[in-house]
């Protein structure tokens, strides 16, 4: 019997009622007395020297209150990179300043060089068009190879377009090179991990408020992590004391990473609000989203797998160029390094590996973490290369993987890429996959497809990810400039209902439903009387926000710790109420009782007592029932999975149709199976979107060619099959109290290689055995070209 409440139950998402009936309160829905509107003037060229900006005409236009340019921000700080990467030679990475508004030079199409504040958005837009900027266009750097080969520079002052040249693990380099040199078989694959535009349904928006009476600022903004945004603005950019800035991220319509980061628009609306003494609001147009949201992926990679003739892996070597765009976004340096290189061992017992990543500045929008962040890039390279290796060896692709899997009894396992996987059972995942994907029925399905003139292919892969980001001690050693713990306060009100203030931000993940399930389970009370409070630095203790599949694993653990403290204190109060010793108090199903007696008090009575402390031992117990916990994980969590995709390829047009997709994931314990399934569905849609459709393209002049939905292909329901999703293979995380691993990114990480593997398999079945790889998106045009080259 499935449970109907608490951990393991699937209550419907309570937040969906307001989202689906138009009752959500997004940043753009918040309207304030006296508000004004900001519009940005943005570069039309990829790069150019700003010779002059004449704002006089704009300043005199109707309704205009102020015009800002880069000159107004030369005395404030820049938007920093959150992670210091050192190059192989020990040199720290290059960190050019990222100003609030471009100063001296614009560096990508969409780079803002001025902003107008006016009474209405239309007036601001009219005035922004009237700004006369004399920008001397310069040759653009777009392609990473040529960016590294010399020539024009994105940032003249650093003298190179290379941000860093990172090696992982440097001590394994010689051993890896030697293993590859002497290996009986080496598979080599060059591939591109295509650049993506996040395209959250809600565009970015920010409203800045300044209260001249108190000197306090408020920022309403589309953020996945309000405290991090506050920290960046206060400590690095504007120098506002943290106690003077409240950051509110209300309902947020999706982020997928793009709303982790602080953007210049946030600093602008705050500065303008201070100057004008009136609220200043801004909402991005969809075009601005395409041009200025941090993009994702964009790697060019060469991977080699060295192995024995029987398929036993001997070494992996990866060389990657990672595009960071024109400026370093906050996590941009961590994504291609510690979220990528450290995952290159996959699920395998390879003895040694080496990863080299060169991060490259180009005249394109900044690139940063996007759902999966580095781990999809790692999984894609490795799992595509393993498929190619299987073909070259004439082995079954699953058999090759099985042969090299870490075995269940080898955990905890120190993988060659430096991480210690606490637990897992990859064989069980693949066994389950074989059953659910009906792999044994594939040949019959292939024959049926063949009769229709099409080609059927199957692709499988496994993946490992490092989630529950992240143990502060470990990431500190690796260069992180922040800690990655999280925090929660459990406030039991006098009447027994509960507010839980959490540092994780929910923007589609369902925290408002899932977190109460945990607390309800622990306290034995109705989850309907528990509410989550999040997204407001003035209401929650602290929090590092939501990304890296961390909310439940890290913040959920803080919730558990705080709830344990509540139980401990409540036991003291109960002991007093029952005139017993605290050691004798037992707590179960919402009742405190004394073993061997009929004495008991309910949780609600204890809560009331805590707030109406008549006849209360105030010298022993403080009144009130509220506890806070910070939780810092001991390790990453390691979700893993095995995916299978079946496609049909139309040989006349090259069109790929996904017929079946099976995702078997090990997320450890599952709090709300329905939400987990939904997260996997969404991740799969994004992974399949990357594999088949999405592609952000710039031309050689740095003009973005896919700057609207007319040319940037989003996945739609009709592109996706009915998924088979399973998360019954559970090896609970060994180091967090819930035994959970995180499920938000898995689908996007695990699915691209399965799709491409399936397409290659289909083409081989049609006799196109010379086609060993097609870069994503595997569009009809690309498949047809590959078949006809």
């Amino acid at each position, binding site marked *: 019997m499935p449970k109907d409440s608490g951990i393991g139950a699937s209550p419907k998402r309570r937040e969906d009622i307001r989202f689906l009936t138009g009752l959500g309160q997004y940043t753009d829905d918040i309207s304030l007395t006296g508000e004004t509107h900001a519009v940005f003037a943005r570069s039309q060229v990829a790069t150019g020297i700003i010779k002059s900006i004449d704002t006089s005409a704009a300043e005199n236009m109707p309704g205009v209150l102020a015009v800002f340019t880069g000159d107004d921000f030369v005395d404030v700080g820049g938007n920093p990179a959150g992670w210091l990467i050192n190059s192989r030679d020990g040199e720290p990475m290059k960190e050019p300043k990222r100003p609030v508004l471009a100063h001296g030079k614009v560096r990508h199409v969409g780079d803002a060089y001025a902003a107008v504040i006016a009474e209405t958005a*239309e007036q601001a*837009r009219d005035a922004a068009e009237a700004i006369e900027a004399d920008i001397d266009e310069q040759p653009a750097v777009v392609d990473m190879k040529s960016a590294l080969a010399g020539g024009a520079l994105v940032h003249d002052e650093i003298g190179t377009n290379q941000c860093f040249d990172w090696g992982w693990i440097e001590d394994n380099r010689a051993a890896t090179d030697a293993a590859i040199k002497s290996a009986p078989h080496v598979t080599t694959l060059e591939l591109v991990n295509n650049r993506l535009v996040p395209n959250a349904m809600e565009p970015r928006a920010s409203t800045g408020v300044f209260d001249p009476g108190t000197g306090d600022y408020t920022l309403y903004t589309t953020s996945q992590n309000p405290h991090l945004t506050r920290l960046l603005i206060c400590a690095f950019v504007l120098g506002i004391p943290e106690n003077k800035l409240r950051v509110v991220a209300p309902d947020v319509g999706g982020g997928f990473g793009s709303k982790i980061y602080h953007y210049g628009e946030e600093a602008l609306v705050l500065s303008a609000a201070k100057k004008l003494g009136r609220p200043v609001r801004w909402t991005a147009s969809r*075009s601005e989203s395409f041009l200025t949201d941090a993009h994702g992926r964009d790697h060019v990679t060469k991977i080699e797998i060295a192995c024995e003739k029987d398929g036993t892996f001997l070494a992996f070597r990866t060389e990657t160029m990672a595009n960071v765009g024109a400026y370093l976004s906050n996590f941009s340096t961590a994504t291609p390094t510690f979220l990528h290189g450290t995952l290159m061992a996959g699920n395998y017992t390879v003895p040694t590996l080496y990863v080299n990543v060169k991060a490259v500045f180009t005249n394109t929008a900044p690139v940063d973490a996007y759902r999966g962040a580095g781990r999809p890039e790692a999984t894609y390279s490795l799992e595509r290369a393993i498929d190619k290796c299987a073909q070259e060896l004439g082995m079954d692709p699953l058999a090759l993987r099985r042969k090299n899997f870490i075995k269940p009894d080898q955990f905890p396992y120190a993988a060659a890429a430096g991480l210690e996987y606490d637990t897992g059972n990859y064989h069980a995942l693949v066994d389950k996959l074989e059953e659910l994907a009906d792999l044994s029925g594939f040949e019959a399905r292939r024959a049926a497809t063949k009769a229709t003139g099409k080609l059927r292919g199957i692709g499988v892969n496994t993946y490992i990810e490092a989630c529950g980001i992240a143990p502060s001690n470990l990431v500190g050693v690796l260069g992180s400039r922040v800690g990655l713990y999280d925090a929660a306060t459990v406030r039991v009100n006098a009447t027994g209902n509960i507010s839980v203030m959490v540092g994780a931000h929910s923007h589609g993940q369902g925290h408002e439903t899932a977190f109460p399930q945990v607390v309800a389970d622990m306290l034995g009370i109705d989850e309907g009387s528990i509410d989550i409070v999040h997204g407001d630095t003035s209401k929650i203790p602290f929090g590092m926000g939501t990304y890296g599949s961390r909310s439940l694993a890290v913040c959920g653990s803080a919730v558990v710790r705080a709830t344990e403290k509540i139980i401990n204190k409540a036991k003291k109060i109960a002991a007093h109420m029952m005139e017993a010793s605290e050691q004798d108090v037992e707590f179960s199903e919402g009742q405190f009782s004394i073993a061997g007696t009929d004495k008991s008090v309910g949780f609600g009575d204890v809560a009331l007592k805590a707030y109406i402390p008549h006849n209360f031992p105030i010298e022993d117990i403080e009144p009130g029932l509220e506890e806070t916990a910070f939780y810092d994980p001991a390790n990453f969590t390691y979700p893993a999975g095995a995916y299978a995709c079946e496609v049909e390829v139309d040989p006349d047009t090259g069109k790929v149709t996904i017929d079946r997709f099976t995702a078997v994931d090990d997320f450890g314990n599952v709090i709300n199976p329905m939400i987990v399934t939904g997260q996997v569905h969404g991740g799969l849609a994004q992974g399949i979107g990357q594999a088949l459709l999405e592609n952000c393209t710039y031309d050689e002049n740095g003009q973005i060619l*896919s700057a609207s*939905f007319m*040319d940037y*292909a989003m996945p739609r329901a009709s592109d996706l099959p009915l998924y088979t999703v399973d998360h019954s293979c559970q090896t609970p995380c060994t180091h967090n109290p819930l035994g959970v691993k995180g499920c938000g990114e898995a689908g996007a990480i695990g699915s691209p290689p399965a799709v491409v593997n399936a397409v290659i398999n289909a083409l081989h079945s049609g006799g196109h055995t010379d086609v060993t790889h097609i870069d994503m998106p595997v569009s009809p*045009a690309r498949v*047809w070209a590959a078949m006809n080259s």
Partner: protein
Amino acid sequence: MYDFSFVKPGTVADAVTALASEDAQALGGGQTLIPTMKQRLASPAKLVSLTGIADMQGVSQSGGVLSIGGATTHAAVSAQAGGFAGLAALAGGIGDPAVRNRGTIGGSLANNDPAACYPSAALATGATIVTNTREIAADDFFQGLFETALDEGEIITAVHMPIPEASNYQKFEQPASRFALVGVFVAKYASGVRVAVTGASEGGVFRWSEAEAALGANFSPDAVSGLSVAPGDMIEDLHGSKAYRAHLVKVMTSRAVAAAG
């Protein structure tokens, strides 16, 4: 969007008068024009909506000709053009329901987007485009990308399409916009076969005369197998090369013939 004024006349004559003022522009379903205005790429001073003109609405059939009012929506054509199944299916495959409930045949033809669906049907049926001043043969109407024979302020009031014995439209969708990457309309008449291709050519919608001749002699999917389209004039963009589009023209033609039966 810049400021503009808006009128919604009830007759063609009133619309023509309203369009005579400076920078006035006709508004059909607004599915092309409004997004262009939102991006500030168009700035008409006045919009003259044609959707309130009763004479420009609806689908009727007489003497083997289907007549469609110039302001008839794609959804209405899809629902009401049962006598011309090939056209009803084309209309039902344009965009999504929101687009089909607003967008009009007159707007689509006047816009003459090189990837739009309707121009292929108009050309393949040898349609007559009726305006407030004259009748224009489809063969003379389409004059290249976004170019037509319409004069300033001229309104498409109706489209007359001779109903073919057999017809079909095959659209290979551009993956992002879902407009036609290549769309082929095949129409078979007693007098011969007409084949019009959209989405593919740098010159806009065109008739593939070799295919028309071959299909005229033998109306079967294989009849075009020996033919090829010169890639030189084809469009090349993010979504397909010239060679790919030229290839698709043939594949889609053959499929349209197969589906037309």
